[in-house]
């Protein structure tokens, strides 16, 4: 126990300020939510993550969002285990044909109002996998997308910025 406590003391606070949104490459696509709704979210959103066919590097960086250095919870971004409680669906990868149905169902399971943030170049246009018998390309081909975060993979700070951008257009 003593070891744990002294490790905590030694570590201190490692959380860093978030780089400004301009440093991330983000494309805003959807109409967004009404101002009234986003105001009520108070920027506190519950996020459900779905890997629709990524190479898993996007998913590595998405989970790093939650580490003490990026600490997405301080911005009110909370990862949820179920789409039923989620305000935002975070999707990575091109949409694999074999994941299309599961992705649509996950989206349908979310309560309104809802937003979709697509992570990575694959989510934007299929990336290196393109469109084929097995890949449907962009997430936007399957469900409506509000914000695209570019990068292969995007950095954790880019993904946080993308999520914030989805709920606060004035950022």
């Amino acid at each position: 126990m003593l070891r744990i406590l002294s490790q905590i003391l030694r570590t201190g606070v490692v959380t860093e300020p978030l780089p400004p949104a301009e440093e991330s490459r983000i494309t805003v696509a959807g109409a967004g939510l009404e101002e009234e709704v986003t105001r009520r979210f108070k920027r506190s959103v519950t996020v459900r993550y779905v890997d629709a066919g990524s190479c898993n590097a996007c998913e590595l960086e998405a989970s790093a969002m939650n580490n003490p250095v990026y600490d997405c919870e301080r911005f009110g971004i909370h990862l949820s285990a179920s789409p039923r409680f989620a305000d935002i669906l975070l999707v990575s990868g091109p949409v694999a044909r074999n994941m299309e149905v599961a992705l649509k169902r996950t989206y349908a399971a979310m309560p309104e109002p809802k937003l979709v943030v697509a992570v990575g170049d694959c989510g934007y246009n299929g990336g290196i996998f393109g469109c084929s018998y097995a890949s449907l390309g962009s997430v936007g081909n399957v469900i409506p997308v509000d914000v695209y975060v570019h990068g292969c993979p995007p950095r954790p700070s880019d993904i946080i910025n993308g999520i914030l951008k989805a709920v606060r257009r004035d950022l």
Partner: protein
Amino acid sequence: MRKILEIIADLTPDVTQSGAEAYIVPRDKFNAAAKALKNEGVRLAAEWASDDTPFGEGFSVYAAYSAPKGYLVIRSKVPLEDQTFPSIVKKFTAARRFERQIHSLMGLTPINNPDLRPWIKHEDWPAGACPLRKTFDAREKLPRVEGSYGWARAEGEGVYEIAVGPVHAGVIEPGHFRFQSVGEDIINLETRFGYVHKGIEKRFEEMSWIEASRLAGRVSGDSTVAHQLAYCRAVEAAAGIRVPERAHWIRALMVEIERLANHLNDIGAISNDTAFSFLLYQFSILREKVLRASFEAFGHRLMMDRIVPGGVNSDLDGRAAKAILETIDNVSVEFERLVRIYEENPSVEDRVFGTGVLTPETATEIGAVGFVARSSGVRMDCRVDAPFPPYNRLSPRVTVLSSGDVHARTWVRIEEARESMRLVRGILEGMPAGPVSVSFSALEACSSGFSAVEGWRGEIIYWVQAGPDGSINRCMVRDPSSVNWLSIERAIKGNIVPDFPLCNKSFNQSYSGNDL
């Protein structure tokens, strides 16, 4: 090896192949060869097929065996008029999924394989769709058809089924797990994958050799460096080019950094699944430090796209080397502190010892690779068994435990993280000067190359084949996950349902690498 070869009759050397000893046997001897090799205690590493119609022939089926001192590839030609080959599942358990995959994606039928349910291909694909055939148009949109999958069933009083996935609760990849349980006890687990099948092997065939190394780096992103290395080594073997010494060292440096970063991540994640989140956060800080050093040295957190056919595309300067060294010095001190906390925590101990046991017998039977094999008493590591520079100079230490439980898999990775830090220091110290790449132009028509690289998960195999015009005719990828996924089904039996996430995390196999 000689001795093994004498046992198999009718062998002719396959002069088109490089990177492994390769022979052609008549098709009806394909399983006799398997039998002879099995008796010699050899492991089946991969089995695949190629469509040779561009050469005016039919198909070929290949089996790669890991023999003492290198690999052996046995090839049999399959004529167009009779698209079958003798199955080798009776001899090698690993062949089950390899052959289902060959059947599903290439459309060749293994004779006497009792399980030909589709694999990777889902039941809603049209029956005749075999994407790896040259006649199949990759741009073709596949309609969805009605179909069902023949799940294993269990019946009896109190038996119930839990279906999990493809979408899971955490930030992880998709796959489906179906448990039959009585009370909390798991009596059977059946896994099914293919959800993230992106048509990677087919996509390779549309790319140039240079471009394709970017694709190899996206087969399993957490292992991007090792995949790019394995791909490039296969291409270089086929092309017969010699990579400059310094490039070998820079490549190995990246492979070891990648191993370290992933081990750090997963040791923390395993602890988290025992509800000890403290270590997750602590280890994730260390991983972040390693990724940042990678970014500083190579311009990318995961070091994607630095390895190219012919060498590497970015040299390492003194400043970058210093950044890496400082990070390793800092991380290794913190790492040892955290390991002591892991070791001394009774609540972690209670969950990881004796949980999810993969016995050495089972590990050998299924042909497990990497840290999974080494945690179950199997001594194997491509860095030692089939070494290439600089590993032949650095002699990595291999840790083997035999208990096969969650703890063994964690502890082997702790030792490997230590060893990677030692290797990184050794590489930075001994790195020779000189150029970092040679020019790579093209492959000779019909040549092919084989390679095996020890990534952080284990042995990654690539086999590339040039077509009659020298472009990519086939690129076979075998991620460690394709064999190691078999182990979770075997290790979970008799455990309780709540321990599944912990067990699964301790194996941490790739879905993308498996589904391709």
